[in-house]
């Protein structure tokens, strides 16, 4: 069993072994650093202020989506609906502002509520309807995208100023990066320091044992999907804020990037393992590769091939390490 073989102690040793242990336990981080070095050598355009800010902005949407998804994956589920829910939340918020003429800040909160609600519905279907999360969120993927189109009639809607602010700059600092950092800290605090966060690991590790220990498994599941919906909504608002308008086809297919980010970050789709820091690194790996390939003028067709290979390699190396590392 792979989760049992997670190295739990770091043996003190010589410098060389310590480096080796560090590399083994932080493969994704090491990969990211190597990637950065390679790009630094390959092109002078990589390590420049504007490009790094650009990477941060590009990473923000995927990372925030993936933070929410990390809760679900740690608890042993999957959420395929995050991209659609992001779009629905952004569209819902824009609709509240533009059509229902609500104040901008209320439209922002409304958008977050829409995402949370959509996630909670998936959560109820999983916890009480006994649907596998793959199916429940596949359904939500379709429902949320459909509602987005219904709401917008297939056309973009202008966002509230409060939402556009999320996509803008404060002085030289882009707001998406600020939000990325705050969302990451909040997600990590939830996962590591709250009771519900620790319960997520237990439910994902062994649902039956969790239930027999008195852990309210259903409540944990609903919470997990609601959180995923909330983070998806935040990502959707970021995305629409950058464009000043909510697009009906926004974030389509982003769920796959988000899943990739989480698993590159070392989480196990079997549940019980995963860290927010890993997910952040996973998202950065994806974005840095795309950015680097763009700088090197590699066609976007080939980029897809490279990304696919990287996902397979990252997870393959990780599971190989877990197997032999014991």
């Amino acid at each position, binding site marked *: 069993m792979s989760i049992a073989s997670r190295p739990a102690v770091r043996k003190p040793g010589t410098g060389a072994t310590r480096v080796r242990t560090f590399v083994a336990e932080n493969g994704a981080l090491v990969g990211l650093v190597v990637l950065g070095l390679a790009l630094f050598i390959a092109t002078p355009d990589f390590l420049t202020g504007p490009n790094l800010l650009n990477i941060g902005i590009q990473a923000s949407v995927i990372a925030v989506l993936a933070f929410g998804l990390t809760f679900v994956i740690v608890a042993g589920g999957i959420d395929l609906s995050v991209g659609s829910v992001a779009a629905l939340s952004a569209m819902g918020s824009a609709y509240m502002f533009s059509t229902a003429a609500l104040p901008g800040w209320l439209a922002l909160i409304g958008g977050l509520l829409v995402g949370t609600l959509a996630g909670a519905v998936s959560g109820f279907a999983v916890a009480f309807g006994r649907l596998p999360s793959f199916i429940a969120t596949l359904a939500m993927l379709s429902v949320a995208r459909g509602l987005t189109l219904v709401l917008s009639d297939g056309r973009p809607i202008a966002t509230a100023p409060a939402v556009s602010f999320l996509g803008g700059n404060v002085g030289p600092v882009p707001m998406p990066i600020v939000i990325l950092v705050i969302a990451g800290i909040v997600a990590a605090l939830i996962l590591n320091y709250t009771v519900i966060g620790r319960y997520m690991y237990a439910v994902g590790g062994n649902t039956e044992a969790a239930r*027999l220990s008195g852990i309210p498994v259903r409540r944990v599941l609903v919470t997990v999907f609601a959180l995923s919906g909330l983070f998806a909504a935040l990502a959707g608002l970021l995305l629409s804020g950058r464009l000043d308008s909510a697009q009906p086809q926004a974030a389509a297919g982003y769920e796959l990037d988000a899943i990739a980010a989480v698993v590159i970050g070392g989480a196990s789709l079997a549940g019980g393992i995963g860290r927010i820091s890993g997910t952040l690194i996973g998202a950065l790996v994806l974005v840095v590769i795309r950015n680097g390939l763009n700088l090197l003028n590699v066609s976007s067709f080939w980029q897809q091939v490279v990304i696919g290979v990287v996902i397979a390699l990252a997870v393959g190396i990780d599971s190989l390490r877990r197997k032999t590392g014991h």
Partner: protein
Amino acid sequence: MSTPILSLERVTKSFGSVTVIDGVSVDVHPGRVQVLLGENGAGKSTLIKMMAGVYQPDGGRILVDGRDVTLPDTKASEALGIATIHQELNLVGSMSIAENISLGRLPKRFGLVDRRRMKENARAALALIGLDLDVDQHVGELGIARQQLVEIAKALSMDARMLILDEPTAALTKREIAALFGVVDDLRARGVGMVFISHHLDEIAAIGDSVSVLRDGTFIAEVPATTDEDELVRLMVGRDIAQQFPRRREFDGAPETLLSVRNLSTKGMVNDVSFEVHAGEVVALAGLVGAGRTEVVRAIAGVDPYLTGSVAVRGRELPRLDVGAAIRAGVGHVPEDRKVQGLVLGASVNDNIGYATLASTAKAGVVDFAGQRARAQGVADTLRIRMRDLDQPVGSLSGGNQQKAVFARWILAESSVLLLDEPTRGVDVGAKVEIYELINAITAAGGAVVMVSSELPEVLGMADRILVMSGGHISGELDATTATQDAVMSLAVRDVQRDLEDQQMKDEA
């Protein structure tokens, strides 16, 4: 005597700086059952993994038919006719018996599977051990015992002449064990050599020829299987266990009724069960597997629903199907299968001990890490859980220590009504005694214990009262000080058939 099929000669094996096997020699002769005996952690599994080619010894030699061999992997040992029947069976539940027996070497014709030949092969394999089953049946539909026999048939069909049986009786009923031993006797007569591992000492005399005793990775002695149990225990643990069941009744408070179960019935399994358990008391639920004992305990703990009846702790009725409420009322449940139901194996000892108390000790939803850790360390020390540290994954502890971690959770939760379902299953002798002492400590402190156990000596040794279940209801109550194994068994089998018919008629009505 004949040349051994396989000999390990003074083999050693280390993992890192820890030597787990140190100069052990074992011979497996054709037509003989060699028992490996030792506590968990004594090195039995490492030894059989060397026989099977999973591990390679660091020192010493492996001989097959008197010739030096190396076994780099399991394929190499299988090619030499050595097969292992693991505790966790290697069968695909959703495939037929025939497919399972031929798995990995399906007979082909024109590039397609030759189903007829596959079935013939399977029938021939089953016939080797006198098993009459429909080879088209899915393996998942068979009980554990039958699955085990199918696995043995599969090994024999691959020309195995030596079988390693790793705790084959752990999940079997008495009757299934008898059937398995019949097969083992047959194989012995046909010259198959066998290695047998079991925690049940009474099985050794019944099935073994010779016993190799291991302790802490070293070879202690080889004795005939007829050696009496006390002597085997002494060899195994290196000290006398004068009292295997050290039941002490030290509680001198008022015998308050802690748990009262009234007219409990569940769908199809439990039929009108009522009983009370008082402070300081151990009540055993005895009976055959399937008599409804586990179902009673699970209903009390809030894990499964019940149709009618009530459960009360200290006079306060518990809501149905609410584990959290049961825990808050003081109920602690040590389930039947600690790996599947008791523990999150990949999580740390610290987390596992803390699950039931995480919420009640938290402030505003934030885990009290320092306090939780200190409390977990305290109870782990008290129970003498042998671990590297609290962050070690609980799945890497030995069986006895895993079980103690489940107990620790409820001690931390200050549970006063403990429901123990087969508390010493798969636990070595030393840890068993520690668990019995723990039960003593719980009752001495005024707790009440309900213990489900299939081991009659344990029931007679540890309980104050014995409730015998048969066919879903309590067929009788015995005082443990005067009860005998025969008395328990005769109640356990009483009217099973009639009760089943009653139940069927009721279900149909």
